[in-house]
């Protein structure tokens, strides 16, 4: 099968083009370095199936960061039959240097000047025919986001695929040492084909940034935006979640319970109170997940992440981190796994390790489910969103404390140089794709971990057969009893302890386990929790859930990204110690104050 590789600088729209070509759901965002690994998809082009490969962005072929090495190794080991070079038309003046470097590799290539719509708005005119002539490469202007110029580009790619695949030069780097030559070549090409206005027009980005990056208002605005986002998720998401839960409860009585009525009581209990209750409770969070990722998609796509990096870099520098580490913490709010992988854009290993040590404290969407449920059950409707927001602040605080304590072990002097892209807005299609992608991701996790988890919880809380269900003589009760001396000082009951043990696998299981342990779901479960716990215990439980151990997928990622088992074990151990210390301080402090 022939292979087409998408190559270009970071944040030029390669993944957007990839999604357009393959109908795939590569994660896109207005952030240089959102793609850090290879993605492939197959499409029918002309009469042949071809494989499309989306590569991480590279600034030049000399790059030293891990994501750039991925690309260099790829090009060296598998010469693509065609390279689609994606350049940002707005920045053609500088991005041409990468094209000229790539040209030296004698690849079979077609150049796509992407974001042609944006370039036009900036008053940049490009004569692609003239440019094509002076470089001897087919060049097309297009917009991968809106699809203009796409059919022509695809047609050109189909034609170019007929040429034989070139061979890669042996000494890839040695060829690239003459940059002086590139500079004069750039001037020659640009002179005749590109016109850029002397001064950038005063556009929306400039005006928005005067406010968003204001010396004093910038940070308060940032926290204000975060507060509104999480408030919004709680206000819209919680009723939706409760509604879906009620619907699942109705479905159980109306259809599922009668269906299983012929089965023996134990099996019936396992299926209904175990699998159905557990999975339904977790599945009720789908609307919150969708809502959350729609908000995240907007934040990522607008380019606000780079603004956050600008605002926070000075503070992060004091913790031995940089603005990009902060952006990864924000991305971690979605899921810690891609955030951990996102650190590949950092060149210094120490900086990467320190960033990876703090990212697991980022309050991911799985933990969000636990907190939405528990805070809605234990706090008044006015106080619950505040409780949730305070947990986000604790999430930052845990990261800050960790970085301050361990920055001495991970010293680095990595330079901080980052592109600030203009504000952009996602299309409706992009947002739907993102929402859909997250739902399927969530359901995949649900089928992998959550079903197995809740079945195991049910067995632990119902075996041995002689024990009273969920009583102290079941296996779960016995384990809870052992751990009680450790968890009693932080106000966590044996039932919650069992849920926490399973939360180690995936945080989504925590609420599912509680549903199984109590044999209740939805509002009945909230009621049971409210009866058994007071708000101090509940908050202590949430603090512990927030900080203790990354989930299994995050641990696996920590291990594979750091390639260091000792570091991974340290990250787990430290988070357990910190979680206990924070919960202990909070719980005992609140009790001492008389709450």
């Amino acid at each position, binding site marked *: 099968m022939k292979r087409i590789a998408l190559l270009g600088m970071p944040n030029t729209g390669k993944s957007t083009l990839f999604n357009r070509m393959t109908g795939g759901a590569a994660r896109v965002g207005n952030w240089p370095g959102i793609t850090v690994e290879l993605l492939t998809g197959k499409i029918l082009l002309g009469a042949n199936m071809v494989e499309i490969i989306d590569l991480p962005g590279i600034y030049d072929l000399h790059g030293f960061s891990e994501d750039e090495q991925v690309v260099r190794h790829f090009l060296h080991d598998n010469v693509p039959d065609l390279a689609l070079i994606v350049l940002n038309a707005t920045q053609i003046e*500088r991005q041409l240097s*990468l094209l000229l470097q790539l040209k030296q590799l004698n690849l079979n290539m077609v150049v796509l000047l992407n974001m042609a719509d944006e370039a036009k708005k900036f008053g940049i005119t490009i004569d692609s025919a003239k440019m094509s002539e002076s470089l001897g490469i087919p060049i097309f202007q297009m917009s991968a986001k809106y699809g203009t110029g796409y059919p022509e580009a695809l047609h050109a790619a189909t034609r170019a695929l007929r040429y034989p695949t070139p061979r890669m030069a042996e000494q890839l780097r040695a060829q690239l040492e003459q940059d002086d030559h590139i500079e004069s070549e750039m001037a020659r090409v640009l002179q005749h084909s590109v016109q850029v206005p002397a001064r950038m027009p005063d556009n929306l980005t400039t005006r928005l940034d005067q406010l968003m990056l204001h010396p004093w208002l910038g940070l308060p605005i940032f926290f204000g935006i975060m507060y509104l986002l999480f408030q919004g998720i709680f206000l819209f998401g919680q009723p939706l979640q409760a509604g879906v839960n009620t619907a699942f409860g109705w479905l159980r009585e109306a259809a599922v319970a009668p269906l299983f009525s012929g089965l023996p009581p134990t099996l019936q209990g396992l299926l209904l109170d175990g699998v159905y209750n557990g999975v339904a409770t977790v599945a009720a969070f789908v609307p919150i997940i969708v809502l959350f990722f729609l908000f995240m998609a907007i934040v990522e796509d607008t380019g606000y992440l780079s603004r956050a990096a600008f605002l926070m870099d000075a503070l992060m520098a004091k913790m031995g981190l940089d603005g990009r580490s902060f952006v990864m913490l924000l991305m971690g709010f979605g899921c810690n796994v891609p955030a951990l992988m996102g650190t590949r854009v950092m060149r210094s290993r120490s900086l990467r390790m320190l960033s990876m040590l703090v990212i697991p404290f980022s309050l991911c969407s799985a933990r969000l489910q636990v907190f939405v449920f528990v805070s809605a059950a234990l706090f008044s409707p006015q106080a619950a969103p505040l409780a949730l927001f305070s947990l986000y602040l604790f999430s930052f605080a845990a990261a800050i404390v960790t970085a301050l304590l361990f920055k001495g072990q991970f010293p680095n002097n990595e330079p901080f140089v980052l*592109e600030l892209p203009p504000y952009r807005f996602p299309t409706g299609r992009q947002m739907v794709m993102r929402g859909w992608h997250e739902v399927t991701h969530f359901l995949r996790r649900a089928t992998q971990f959550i079903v197995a988890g809740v079945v195991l919880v049910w067995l632990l809380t119902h075996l041995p057969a002689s024990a009273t269900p969920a009583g102290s003589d079941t296996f779960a009760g016995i384990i809870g009893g052992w751990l009680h001396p450790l968890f009693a000082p932080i106000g966590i009951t044996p039932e919650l302890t069992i849920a926490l043990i399973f939360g180690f696998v995936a945080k989504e299981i925590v609420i599912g386990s509680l549903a199984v342990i109590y044999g209740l779901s939805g509002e009945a479960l909230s009621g049971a929790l409210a009866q058994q716990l007071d708000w101090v215990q509940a908050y202590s439980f949430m603090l512990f859930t927030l900080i203790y151990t990354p989930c299994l997928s995050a641990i696996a990622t920590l291990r594979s990204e750091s390639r260091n088992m000792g570091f991974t074990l340290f990250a787990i151990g430290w988070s357990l110690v910190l979680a206990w210390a924070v919960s202990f301080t909070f719980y005992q402090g609140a009790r001492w104050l008389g709450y």
Partner: protein
Amino acid sequence: MSAAEPLPPTVTLASLHPGDAATLAAIHTDDALYQRLLALGFRSGKLVQVIRRASFGGPLQVRIGTTDILLRRAEAEKITVQQP
């Protein structure tokens, strides 16, 4: 790293104030950062404009052509410019 010897009067990029524009003279960094800066459009002779500086000694936002770049003051001190 850079070819041209800076001609007086040169100052560092870090010493410019928001709104100031100057011509890029030379880059004195290690090779890896030098390559990255080249790719971002830092080439001698180019016009560079300081847009703003972050509070608490944070990074600078500079504009070269149509690209806006954030860089720390420590990095900006390694870049010399000529003011008109």
